[in-house]
């Protein structure tokens, strides 16, 4: 993929924002006869909220019934489940348990179950304390019961937007990354976006700018919502903690507290979080001493065994929260503009539903959608980076065919030189070591580079 500089050509559609929503829209629109540009301020796809979240593929059981979010989550999660299976995105159907620790929480479970039904989800099941502890023996003492949501799953949040982007790149979408939109002038049926790399002209703009979606929306005369980023800090525990739990352990939301969850990850770790703090700075992805301390305290109540395990990593992500309860998704034919903003924390699960919905809105608003001839392209075959399936280092036939898959470079995550080589040569290559981590897991492990940091950097720089 060449990172095209903005040029004098006129694109049919510029999608602003290459997160999970923007890349999903790009691969969906790429099925039509359109000249598409995917633009992002960051030098890679999937770098904002898309890379730092709880990595859960939600069923939408707890959405607000009747909301757009509920509808798109329901549709999107079904689409993504199927897509992930085809594209090699790691997904594990672990199920979730809403664990009630107090009488008040226990009393709230039937209401949550009824709410799930209204959202079209029928699979919930109430568990008594005894059943709960049989399922999760390492759970801390004092749980009164739980509601089981068997279809809640964990997913690789990094491969998902990469798969969408890879599919889009294959269909001819041009990527203009490291390019921030600073303004727009519209005249004569054309938009001219002012960017940090010069002007870029197009007929239509789709705003999928996540944390910046209100700023872009205001440029197009919207202004119906304001993003107040909600910071969530998370702690990733060592893989040796993974046997402590089977399911996603969710808190029961009450009026007083949101609580934190404990979940397995598809990489075989245990995730604890998030905190929820409203911040003003849209780049405030730093962790805090208070946040980490409160998470550890909460985690040790839920799973006391976590206290004896090592922390592998900590991070913070920002959710694009607005003053509205629902997504801000609309299209305006007069302005040749569509907005998919205010997507708080369900964007990953709903992404394909949002993309399908936005395509429909654009069609209604007058963007000519002419399907490309021939069958729809199959999802790309992405490198599988989950623990549940076979990794390259475990595949004797693959190593025999290409010994680079037997050369383990990142020991904690068991990433081979072959996988790093493939990622660097992929259609959507990483811009930096962070991007390489999201594509291969190299450097993500418990040593955080003690053993492999220098070697991975050498490979990234094209040296052995």
């Amino acid at each position, binding site marked *: 993929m060449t990172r095209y500089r903005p040029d004098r050509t006129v694109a049919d559609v510029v999608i602003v924002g290459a997160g999970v929503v923007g890349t999903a829209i790009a691969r969906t629109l790429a099925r039509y006869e359109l000249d598409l540009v995917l633009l992002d301020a960051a030098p890679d796809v999937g*770098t904002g909220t898309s890379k730092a979240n709880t990595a859960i593929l939600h069923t939408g059981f707890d959405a607000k019934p009747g909301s757009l979010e509920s509808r798109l989550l329901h549709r999107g999660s079904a689409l993504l489940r199927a897509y992930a299976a085809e594209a090699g995105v790691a997904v594990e159907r672990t199920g979730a348990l809403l664990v009630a620790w107090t009488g008040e929480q226990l009393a709230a479970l039937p209401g949550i179950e009824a709410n799930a039904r209204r959202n079209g989800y029928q699979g919930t099941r109430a568990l008594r304390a005894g059943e709960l502890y049989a399922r999760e023996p390492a759970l801390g003492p004092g749980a009164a019961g739980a509601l089981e949501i068997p279809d809640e799953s964990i997913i690789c949040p990094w491969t998902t937007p990469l798969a969408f982007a890879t599919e889009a790149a294959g269909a001819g979408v041009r990527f203009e990354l490291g390019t921030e939109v600073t303004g727009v002038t519209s005249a004569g049926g054309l938009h001219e976006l002012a960017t940090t790399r010069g002007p870029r002209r197009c007929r239509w703009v789709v705003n999928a700018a996540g944390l910046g979606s209100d700023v872009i929306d205001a440029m197009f005369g919207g202004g119906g919502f304001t993003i107040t980023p909600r910071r969530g800090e998370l702690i990733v525990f060592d893989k040796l903690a993974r046997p402590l739990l089977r399911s996603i352990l969710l808190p029961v939301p009450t009026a007083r507290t949101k609580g934190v969850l404990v979940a397995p990850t598809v990489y075989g770790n245990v995730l604890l979080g998030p905190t929820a703090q409203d911040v003003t700075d849209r*780049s405030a992805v730093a962790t805090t001493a208070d946040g*980490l301390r409160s998470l550890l305290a909460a985690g040790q109540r839920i799973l006391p065994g976590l206290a004896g395990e090592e922390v592998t990593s*900590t991070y913070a992500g920002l959710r694009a929260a607005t003053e509205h309860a629902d997504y801000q998704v609309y299209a305006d034919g007069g302005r040749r503009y569509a907005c998919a903003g205010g997507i708080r924390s369900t964007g990953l699960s709903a992404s394909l539903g949002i993309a399908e919905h936005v395509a429909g809105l654009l069609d209604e608003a007058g963007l000519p959608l002419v399907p490309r001839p021939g069958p729809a392209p199959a999802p790309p075959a992405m490198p599988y980076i989950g623990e549940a399936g076979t990794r390259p280092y475990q595949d004797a036939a693959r190593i025999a065919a290409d010994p680079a898959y037997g050369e383990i470079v990142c020991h904690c995550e068991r990433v081979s030189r072959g996988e790093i080589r493939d990622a660097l040569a992929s259609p959507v290559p990483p811009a930096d070591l962070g991007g390489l981590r999201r594509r291969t897991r190299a450097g993500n492990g418990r040593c955080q580079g*003690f053993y492999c940091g220098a070697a991975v950097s050498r490979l990234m720089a094209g040296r052995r």
Partner: protein
Amino acid sequence: MTVVVVGAGPAGLSAARELRRLGVGSVLVADREAAAGGVPRHSFHTGYGLRDRHRVMTGPSYAQALAGAAVAAGAQVRAGTTVTCLDVRPGGPHQVTLTSAAGIETVPAAAVLLATGCRERPRAARLVPGDRPAGVMTTGELQQRVYLSGERLTGRALVVGAEHVSFSAAVTLAHAGAEVVALVTEHERQQSYAAFRLGAAVRWRIPVWTRSTLSRIVGSRIVAGQGAGQEAERGRLAGVEVTRDGTARFVPCETVVFTGDWIPDHELARRAGLGLDPGTRGPAVDTALATSVPGVFAAGNLVHAAETADIAALSGRHAARQIALFLKSGVPRGELDGGFAVPVVVEPPLRWISPNVAGAAAAPPLGRFVLRSGEFRWGARLEARQDGRLLTRSRPVRLIPERPVHLGAGWLDQVDSAGGPVRVVTSR
């Protein structure tokens, strides 16, 4: 039947050579790194080999000498080979799965020696809050970047820790071109050896900031399209916040190195189901360095993170002799779950003791136990008691965090095999 040694650092290589010298027919050493030698491979300062080879060498020449000696003795040393699974079988042989560019192979082993060493806790494991920019690393990564990759560093650097390895990191930073601002330690004073400390301090005039903690990491602001190279996305380190007596101040710097705070690389041991010692966090071992599974032994910094390389080497040699005895007699030595096996535990301020099981007929490596303290104490005595009964009391010793303190092993024959754990405590 083969003895498989996991890890070709000082302990593993020394053990391999000794096993061959003692007549063990087949010795296979696997190391996941591209070359044998372990940490000394990328530790360019001198001082290696003192107690095991009776001369002073640099890390790389020491690593080379140990690897050469193991190969010359007839051990098979395979670098670039990861032990991806250790399947222990009661009564043996244990099954060891090796993965490399040559493929995946499972080797039956009459005995296994785990010598997988230790690593420094990185920033995340220490729960240091803040941003996640580039330029934050451990000594292990720093040394490999500078000495194996030939990277140069510019700007100011801060070192977290003030023990032996911290001064070593400071020297590496200075060699690489960085200006070392200070060593930061939460302790009252630094903990390194005088000679080493003086060398670094006099030559580079590096101050030590005591009773201070690195309380936050601050990254540079990322501007769209302006990032370059391997930090395009996450940005560089702008500086850190150092807190002393509740007051935080910002210290601009481009590199931070987290040193020490060792943790054994116990993944293989734990996944194989070996009993772990809560103090060292490595596998529990008796004085023969036998683990809870007969035929599986552990040596080096996996069982005492971290001692100097020569001590690790002697620990490997000790384990080799015990493995040779085990192979000859066929007696499962050091069965921790049954027979004569009494845990040896410590109480604060002591953090750990190694070995940590009394029971085997053997004396521990070098005839002594090695311990760590979490606090400074002058003139403390170490006492070992079992069920209140005094087994031994040491002469007054000086306790320094992260520095070894030793306890003789002459009292082992007084341990009651049916009694409770031996408690090692400090007294005046």
